[in-house]
């Protein structure tokens, strides 16, 4: 188990051991860089595939299934198409900025990977200000988007870019506030440190962590402009928003930035709230018993199914005790589960209106984030049952009040129908 868990770490160490001492730091950097440089485009390409497949299935379609088995070569074909497509720059556009913007949007998206703890001891760069770095780097993307919209010299682009910037800046605030609670509890800004602190319990399973996780994830979704928060590229109003005037490889770069950022959002949600690379800290017999009870109690199932289910669950629990799954698999599994949720949201929800979008950020998430910090304080200051109960109570009351306060007022409370005589 340990060798599999530390497979990449050991391989790296072994490779470096072959080299002279002076070369080791440089080669080490090179190895990390090249891993990210290979991983990022591969992740992005297959994210498009996953998204298209899932959305298609949700709409009773097949999705890509022509190129290769299950359409697995489709992303390659698309990449090739993008490469050889004509690159059109609108007349009157600022050519330099038009070229620089997509590059500037991809660079921070890739840079985000530097502080991701992919597994135990597997982090490209363990910065002690990792969290700060995450917020600093991810906010560069809004410059790129505005740059692209401005440089295109098209009204759709500029409107899309303006909306996008407004949205990103608004949602950064609740995003940061939801993580402040994590910083308070763990006392560290290092992403690896935050994951270490969740060995005993994922933050998702605390009242403030649950609210914080939802807020962080939704703000992240909004920051990367994805449905239901995809105002900047609302097709029905803005053609394609800030990348209307982009084609060919530059367009592919925008796309790549978007997908890498959504991967990063999911990965950082996992890191901050879902225990990072930790397996769920559940004693195996609890898990087995719980699952067995759930399956056994399902009155809708046939008796033999229930019996087999109980046995299977007990077996799963026993296997669980052996901790067979390497940490990096846990990390990727959780991240891809969140990506599924992301796509699922896209497959289900229509787009929000711009005022609803801003209202959600400023009138709901922002106050809730502030209350959440207080809840996290209560949770840390008081011993177990008291602190948790107080935090939960506080959050429930605050949530209820906020929902009440934000409920749309009906303009005509009573409509009186008068029938003609």
């Amino acid at each position, binding site marked *: 188990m340990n060798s599999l868990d530390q497979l990449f770490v050991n391989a790296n160490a072994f490779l470096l051991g072959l080299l002279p001492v002076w070369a080791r730091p440089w080669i080490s950097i090179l190895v990390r860089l090249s891993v990210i440089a290979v991983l990022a485009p591969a992740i992005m390409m297959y994210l498009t595939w996953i998204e298209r497949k*899932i959305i298609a*299935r*949700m*709409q*009773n*379609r*097949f999705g890509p*299934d022509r190129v290769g088995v299950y359409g697995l070569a489709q992303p390659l074909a698309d990449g090739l198409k993008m490469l050889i497509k004509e690159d059109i720059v609108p007349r009157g556009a600022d050519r330099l900025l038009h070229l620089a913007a997509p590059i500037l949007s991809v660079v921070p998206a890739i840079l985000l990977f530097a502080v991701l703890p992919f597994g135990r001891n597997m982090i490209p760069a363990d910065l002690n200000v990792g969290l700060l770095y995450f917020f600093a780097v991810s906010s560069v993307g809004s410059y790129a988007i505005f740059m692209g919209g401005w440089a295109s010299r098209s009204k759709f682009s500029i409107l899309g870019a303006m909306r996008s910037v407004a949205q990103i800046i608004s949602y950064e605030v609740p995003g940061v506030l939801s993580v402040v609670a994590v910083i308070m509890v763990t006392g560290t800004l290092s992403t690896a440190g935050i994951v270490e602190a969740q060995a005993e319990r994922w933050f998702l399973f605390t009242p403030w962590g649950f609210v914080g996780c939802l807020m962080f994830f939704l703000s992240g979704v909004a920051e990367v402009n994805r449905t239901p928060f995809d105002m900047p590229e609302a097709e029905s109003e803005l053609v394609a928003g800030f990348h209307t005037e982009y084609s060919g490889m530059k367009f592919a770069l925008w796309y790549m930035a978007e997908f890498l950022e959504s991967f990063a959002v999911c990965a950082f949600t996992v890191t901050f709230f879902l225990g990072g690379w930790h397996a769920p800290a559940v004693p195996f017999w609890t898990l087995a018993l719980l699952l067995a009870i759930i399956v056994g109690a399902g009155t*809708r*199932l*046939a008796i033999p*199914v229930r019996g087999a289910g109980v046995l299977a669950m007990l077996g799963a629990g026993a296997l669980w005790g052996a901790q067979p799954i390497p940490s990096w698999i846990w990390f990727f599994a959780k991240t891809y589960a969140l990506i599924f949720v992301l796509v*699922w*949201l896209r*497959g*289900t*929800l229509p787009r929000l209106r711009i005022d609803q979008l801003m209202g959600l950020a400023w009138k709901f998430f922002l106050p809730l984030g502030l209350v959440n910090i207080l809840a996290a304080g209560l949770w840390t200051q008081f011993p177990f049952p008291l602190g948790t109960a107080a935090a939960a109570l506080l959050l429930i009351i605050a949530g209820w009040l906020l*929902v009440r306060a934000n409920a749309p007022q009906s303009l005509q409370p009573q409509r009186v129908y008068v029938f003609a005589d």
Partner: protein
Amino acid sequence: MIGAGVLRGMGVTFKTLLETYPWGRAILRTLQIPVTDGIFTIPYPETKQQHPERFRYFPFLVYDGTPDNLRCVACKICEQECPPQSIHIVMEKDEQGRPVKAHGRTLPKQFDVDMSICMSCRICVDVCPFDAIEMDNEYELSASDRYEHMIFDKHKLLKSAEYFQKIKPTEAATVDQRLAAKKAKTASPTGDKPSQPSGP
């Protein structure tokens, strides 16, 4: 409850996702949730849709028995009536300019239908007094050259009556009935003019 609608919607999409896979349908059936058939898409070149019998595309000329025994007498009614004028007919004539007859009928020397103009309106079929032209259901006709491949000449248009019976049994049966009735009328001595048009 706030968000209940969102959750219900997500439930619907997730169920649809499961329904498209056999194992997903199995899970849903075990949970005794009613399932639909899943994917609607027909992967076209591999599987083809079963067309209804009345599906029509472009016209063709019917012959009985051998291809020279075609029903068309080159009366040019369809050429006149075709709205986009996609039919072009030249009657078979000898040197003196008299119509040549075969099997007791005049016949077209040239019968071209421009398939890239035809709009599948079926008017030619309706107006033909001899049931000589019918609608085909062949639709895989894409070609690279419009003049080479999309203008169908007489030989390309000629198809047997059996073929017609095969692709459209009901319609062919009514047509055959009508033709038989007409034949009986012509054969009987009391019958009036033989070439009375019989509308469909």
